């Protein structure tokens, strides 16, 4: 008797807790209904102000919808750890470059830790890590643990920086997590301008101040490269190949119709001045290329043989933004800058997007910390009359001439197209530079209208599945079917309340899991009822038939629940994103049905039996 009372108590408690946990969801729903019903925005604003705390509280505790239902972006970004380790190496000879190239190729194919790939590659060649990393006296093991630490740090730092950028951009409830050794998962619900957000996330935001070499050096260098390309008959070959691979890219920029020189170049014989087909030099020593040839020039500058021709410690960089040349042609200026930077973005403490002196050109004002300020004063003081390029992620924004020593630690980036872009620059500069480049490796975007469709589809599926299964149970098992249906309702309530209570979100696959649970949860009742029918037809009394039915069916129910649960659990463990949502609801639903289908229905029958409301006919 005591035991029975405990069961009843348990059922009441669970039902109440479920309802309590879903109460904020209901409140949230009624609030938004209420707000929709107001005719004017003024009315609704007044309502929001007077009920602010309640509304916010309800929203915070209500059942969250997944990105697919709400609309939003799910991004997986990979931190380029190969690049990170390359930065860490102090000795980068040809052997090292070749090894790292293999590592890069392997890393693209698998999810293994990059450090493991490096170690494997070095082992294969029988080279000690200390030849390239840290101190020559370090053992491999010491270096591995140091590099491991570096890579962990880089990942968490990258995560924090990305979080900063997103926070400053202003997205409600972003979820940012790391996965494995090099992935960052970013979930942004309800973002409308995904292109802008992605641009904000992509850049490394590595800001550098670099000295420009004299125009004569640039002109001389270009001459050397040109001579090298013209002389080396095999030289145009890679360039032609890159034309093929670039053709697709060129096509994807609608603003630029395929330039004639790009299209015709493969067919042309080796030109006398291959470089000057792509680059022009003005009389004042400024070199520039057209928008159409930009990709080709970039590819050319990446080539090892071309880089070998540059003067010591220099690099050729392109402007970030085009300038307008004659006939509205877009021209990118080419700069020869020192490879070592005078100052990096690490010293920047504050950035602010504004309009420049004339009030039309957007720019970003920056201020530096004390260390940066004194360094900046020294650099500017020592280089009066020279040009210093402001380089962000390998592209030159501007290269002003130093007029005088700057003691204040202020600097400005101009050459920005729009205020929006200036604002984005402000965000990434404030958040700091990423330790290594990041790449988007997976993206799933659902527009809000499709999300609304999914919600409608999900609700319809839930209703129809519940209706179909419960009507069937009623028809087939009569009164006992009612007990099974009550259990089913409680089961769905429990699934939703657990999701709401644990702040998990409901996605479309999650709804599919609930729908499937509706079909499978009644299995326990079917097993019991069939058994009760058997016992009844064997001539047992109603009371003992029910007891026997529950007892004997339990073993099957238990086994089948364990197997379903283990399959769902493994799906959860190995699955990602959407599939985990399915596995979670299936797991909760299956576990809950162990309680609802057995304990709840048994209590209902006990109650009905005690009130003499059941007969042999009650099981259909």
């Amino acid at each position, binding site marked *: 008797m005591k035991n029975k009372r405990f069961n009843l108590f348990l059922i009441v408690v669970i039902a109440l807790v479920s309802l309590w946990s879903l109460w904020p969801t209901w409140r949230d729903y009624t609030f938004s209904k209420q707000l929709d019903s107001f005719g004017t925005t003024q009315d609704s604003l007044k309502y929001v102000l007077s009920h602010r705390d309640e509304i916010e509280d309800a929203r915070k505790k209500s059942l969250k919808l997944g990105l697919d239902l709400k609309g939003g972006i799910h991004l997986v970004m990979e931190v380029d750890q190969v690049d990170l380790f390359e930065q860490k190496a102090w000795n980068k000879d040809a052997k090292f470059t070749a090894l790292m190239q293999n590592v890069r190729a392997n890393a693209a194919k698998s999810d293994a830790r990059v450090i493991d790939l490096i170690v494997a590659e070095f082992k294969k060649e029988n080279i000690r890590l200390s030849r390239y990393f840290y101190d020559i006296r370090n053992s491999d093991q010491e270096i591995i643990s140091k590099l491991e630490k570096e890579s962990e740090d880089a990942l968490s730092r990258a995560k924090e920086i990305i979080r900063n950028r997103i926070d400053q951009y202003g997205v409600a409830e972003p979820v940012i997590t790391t996965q494995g050794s090099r992935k960052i998962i970013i979930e942004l619900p309800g973002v409308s301008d995904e292109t802008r957000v992605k641009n904000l996330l992509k850049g490394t935001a590595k800001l550098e101040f670099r000295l420009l070499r004299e125009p004569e050096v640039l002109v001389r260098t270009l001459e050397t490269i040109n001579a090298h390309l013209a002389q080396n008959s095999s030289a145009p070959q890679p360039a032609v190949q890159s034309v093929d691979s670039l053709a697709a890219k060129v096509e994807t920029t609608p603003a630029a119709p395929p330039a004639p020189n790009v299209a015709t170049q493969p067919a042309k014989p080796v030109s006398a001045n291959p470089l000057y087909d792509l680059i022009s030099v003005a009389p004042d020593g400024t070199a520039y290329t057209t928008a159409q040839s930009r990709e080709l020039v970039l590819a050319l500058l990446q080539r090892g043989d071309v880089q070998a021709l540059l003067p010591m410690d220099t690099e050729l960089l392109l402007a970030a933004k085009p300038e307008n040349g004659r006939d509205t042609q877009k021209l990118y200026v080419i700069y020869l800058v020192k490879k070592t930077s005078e100052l990096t973005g690490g010293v920047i403490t504050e950035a602010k997007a504004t309009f420049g002196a004339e009030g039309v050109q957007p720019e970003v004002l920056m201020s530096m910390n004390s260390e940066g300020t004194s360094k900046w004063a020294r650099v500017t003081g020592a280089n009066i009359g020279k040009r210093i390029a402001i380089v962000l992620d390998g592209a030159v924004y501007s290269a002003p001439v130093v007029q005088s020593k700057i003691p204040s630690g202020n600097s400005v980036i101009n050459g920005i197209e729009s205020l929006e872009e200036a604002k984005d620059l402000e965000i990434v500069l404030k958040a700091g530079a990423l330790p290594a480049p990041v790449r988007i490796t*997976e993206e799933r975007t659902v527009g809000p209208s499709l999300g609304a469709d999914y919600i409608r589809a999900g609700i319809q599926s839930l209703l129809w599945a519940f209706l179909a299964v419960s009507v069937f*149970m009623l028809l087939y098992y009569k009164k006992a079917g009612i007990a099974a249906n009550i259990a089913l309702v409680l089961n769905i309530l429990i699934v939703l309340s657990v999701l709401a209570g644990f702040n998990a979100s409901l996605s479309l696959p999650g709804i*599919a899991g609930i729908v499937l649970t*509706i079909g499978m949860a009644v299995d326990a009742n079917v097993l019991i009822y069939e058994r009760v029918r058997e016992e009844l037809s064997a001539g047992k009394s109603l009371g003992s038939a029910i007891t026997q039915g529950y007892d004997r069916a339990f073993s099957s129910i238990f086994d089948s629940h364990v197997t379903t649960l283990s399959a769902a659990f493994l799906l959860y463990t190995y699955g*990602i994103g959407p599939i985990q949502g399915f596995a979670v609801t299936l797991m909760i639903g299956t576990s809950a049905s162990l309680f609802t289908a057995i304990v709840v229905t048994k209590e209902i029958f006990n109650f009905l039996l005690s009130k003499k409301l059941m007969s042999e006919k009650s099981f*259909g």
Partner: protein
Amino acid sequence: MRIFQKTKFDFIRYRKIAYGISLVLLLAGMVSLAVKGLNYGIDFRGGSEVVIRFEKQVDVAQIRSVLDAAGVSGTLKQYGMDRSFLLSTVFDGDTAQLKTLVTNALHEKIKGNVHEIVRIDAVGPSIASDLKWSALKALLASLAAILLYVGIRFELKFATAGVLAIFHDIFVVLGMFSFLGGMFPFMPLEMDQSIIAAFLTIAGYSITDTVVVYDRIRERIQGQKPSEYERIFNESMNQTLSRTIITSGTVLLSVFVLFIFAGPAIRGFAFAVFSGVLIGTYSSIFVAAPIVYDWLRLTKSSVRLSSNKAA
């Protein structure tokens, strides 16, 4: 209401015919897998997919020519929603560019019919190979777990036959996916993550069904002579037949609802589970238990199952 009450089907006698049917299904599936292969979705192959929805009805050929002219590479197909199309193309890390290109071209060329890009999925090659591995791991681990659990709760023979039945079910469904893949525009039957979820669901369902039959056999077989086994197996299957049919009925009902209402993203999954439940119901009666029976008969061993109480 009662269906399948007090049936007396001689399942064991006709098991050879069932073996034949299963073999034919499996072989047909294998042939289709070998010849036609599987239709991999971007989860496993990598690539980008864009779903474009128009306000009014529009011809797929017209959009195709507009996109071709704009230099968008890839294939365009009707998508399983009204006035919607699916553009699949390669993964290049930047879908923003692709989106601008598509939007501009459609905006310019197809006037008076507003379009919206409602979904973008892009999966890089490294992620795709990760997903493939974890899918395989999940499947194998769940089979191992089931083998272990059923092996402990019953006997290794029972467990092995149960896992064989799961293999049977998954391979038949896989064969169907290969054979029917790409045949229906409203349901491309691509292999993606959701299909792996479907396979694990099928595995769980199939073993549940099998365990219920096993459980009944265990309950009745204690202390019986091997000569009685045929009768006991048959009677156990007949006694659980009603439950088997009813439960598969309710699951099929709810999965059918998913297929109809839940939209194209869930349709492949619903189809897989639907056919898997059908096959799984069949296999628990005609594959799993008969294999145990034959195994016992051929090895002339008897069942030593004792406890029928749950742990």
